[in-house]
């Protein structure tokens, strides 16, 4: 075990998989040993694996994603780092229209083992915080990972690199160089599509990923002092979504709060909410609240960002709203 940051854990996962599997290579802008990737997102990889496996590209997101798809079709297992999720749109056409569809449309003859890495999230960078997760999550055929801890980040990265399908891997900038966590050095994976109950509780279920999972844990701690027992479920990947773990939790608590750093409009967690309502609403009273980013473009100044985003206060308020009335 060693104490790793989120960023160190992601890189350790990539490094271990690259040692294990010669077919993996990494495309990206400024990922070589001179710059080591935006926010050190490729730190040490260029020095370790050299320019034939850590391949720098010009600013060409569409061609980078397309090249990743093509190399995957020809037997490689590429990683494409798009730097920021804000740039996802530039590569979305080959990813969403073509790569996502290849397995189904080819009747199971063509698969695309490709990992797309993106940084996102309100945090120290003061820009590039948009996640646009709905764009990729809404297209069948793309898997989407959104880890909240160093341990999960490493395990999910290893799972993504062993998956035979396109995976978009979201790396939150506020968590990136944040708290360290014990991360196992042995070979382990965190499967895509397996939620984890980060904190057990019995009165209300809070579902959140990444930074919002961390905020929800803080909220749960605060609520415990008020006598409210909140269960925090982190789906860890939003596609595939582990609806079953959430369903079991909500069947117990009958109260669901989903917390997203994205806009509520079109938020993938709204789909989860609809699925839970579909399955459980008929049985007994079910209370639901959604907490999300203000439905405007993201503001810039920090006080505005703080006010627009979900936080511990808005999460606890939402929980109280659906627990107090009983």
């Amino acid at each position: 075990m060693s104490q790793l940051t989120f960023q160190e854990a992601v890189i350790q996962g990539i490094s271990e998989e690259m040692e294990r599997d010669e077919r993996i290579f990494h495309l990206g802008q400024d990922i070589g040993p001179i710059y080591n990737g935006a926010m050190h997102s490729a730190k040490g990889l260029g020095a370790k694996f050299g320019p034939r496996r850590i391949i720098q590209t010009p600013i060409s997101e569409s061609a980078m994603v397309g090249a990743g798809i093509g190399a995957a079709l020809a037997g490689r297992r590429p990683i494409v780092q798009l730097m920021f999720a804000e740039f996802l749109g530039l590569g979305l056409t080959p990813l969403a229209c073509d790569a996502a569809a290849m397995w189904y449309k080819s009747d199971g003859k063509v698969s695309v083992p490709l990992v797309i890495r993106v940084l996102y999230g309100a945090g120290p960078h003061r820009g590039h915080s948009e996640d646009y997760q709905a764009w990729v999550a809404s297209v069948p055929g793309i898997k989407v990972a959104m880890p909240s801890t160093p341990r999960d980040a490493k395990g999910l990265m290893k799972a993504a690199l062993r998956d035979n399908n396109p995976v978009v891997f979201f790396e939150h900038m506020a968590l990136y160089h944040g708290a360290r966590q014990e991360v196992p050095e042995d070979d382990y994976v965190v499967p895509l599509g397996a939620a984890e109950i980060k904190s057990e509780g019995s009165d209300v279920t809070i579902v959140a990923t990444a930074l919002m999972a961390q905020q929800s844990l803080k909220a749960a701690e605060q609520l415990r002092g008020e006598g409210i027992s909140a269960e925090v479920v982190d789906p860890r990947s939003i596609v595939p979504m582990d609806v079953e773990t959430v369903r079991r939790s909500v069947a117990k608590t009958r109260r669901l709060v989903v917390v997203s750093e994205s806009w509520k409009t079109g938020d993938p967690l709204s789909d989860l909410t609809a699925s839970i309502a579909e399955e459980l609403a008929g049985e007994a009273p079910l209370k639901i609240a959604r907490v999300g980013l203000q439905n405007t473009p993201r503001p810039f100044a920090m006080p505005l960002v703080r006010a627009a985003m979900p936080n511990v206060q808005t999460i606890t308020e939402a929980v109280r709203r659906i627990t107090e009335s009983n």
Partner: protein
Amino acid sequence: MTPDANLLTSLYHLVAKGRVLESLLGKLPGFHPGVGEEGVVVGAFFGLKDSDYIAPHYRGALLAAHMRGADLRRLIAGVLGKVTSYSRGRVRGDICLPLQFNTLGMFSGVLGNPLNISTGIALAASLDEKQGVVVTSFGEGTSNLGAFHESLNLAACLALPIVYICQNNGYAMSTRTDYALKCTSIADRAQGYGMPGIRVEGNDVVAMHQAVQSAVARARAGEGPTLIDAVTYRISGHYSADPNDYQPKDERASWLKKDPLLLLKARLTAQGVMTDAQLAEIEKAAEAEITEAIAQAQADPDPGLEVLGPDDLYSPVLERVA
């Protein structure tokens, strides 16, 4: 280089077959035929190794896939959405091709995606060090997309083994090349990427084949990509129901004289490789073969609902620890 009789004969078989294929499929609703452009298709994809990859323009895609070994009946079944097609009816077979023949088609109707995806196949080929090459073609309309710029620039930066062929038929739907491109030739654009740009009379299948083979040799030797502007003319409409009445009569008449099939036939007879009667016999055989394939494909069954596969979204394979 003077082509030998065997090469000319092989090319003629394919161009003749292509003409029948494009003409007959052009009668099916919604098809985008490439009558008049067969010289570019045959010249581009003839003479490659099985291990090489191609990513043909959608106009002429079936001919290209057939040249790689795909079965005509199954390809045509793909156009009709029949269960006997390579995808059992899950994808539109007029533009999407079976990858098992190292032939990449379009998995969506979005132009430009095959350009950057085929560039990635070339990237994999460069890492493999097996000297594999990729030959890809696209319309001149697609050369105005960002994907064209990004792909060619990336391929040049990484010296990838790929040949980019612009199947320049003068029209993007109804938009004329001289309206949408302000360079003299698409080959001029190559200069901006630091790669060779070559303009070829695409209707001269021999010249076309030789130009592509030179570029392929260059790519195989690790010398990087080439852009070829293959100038041709779309005799058929953009798609089956397009009356094609926006092509000026005199322009069309002059291009009809340069029909690739006519040019090749003239060459074969002038060089004494074949007589008119022998040429006609080959055309007749091609017509019979393709008419039969279409009839079989039309008689093939539609897919049953078991093909729908609502849960067949992901490749189930997970790589375990080696």
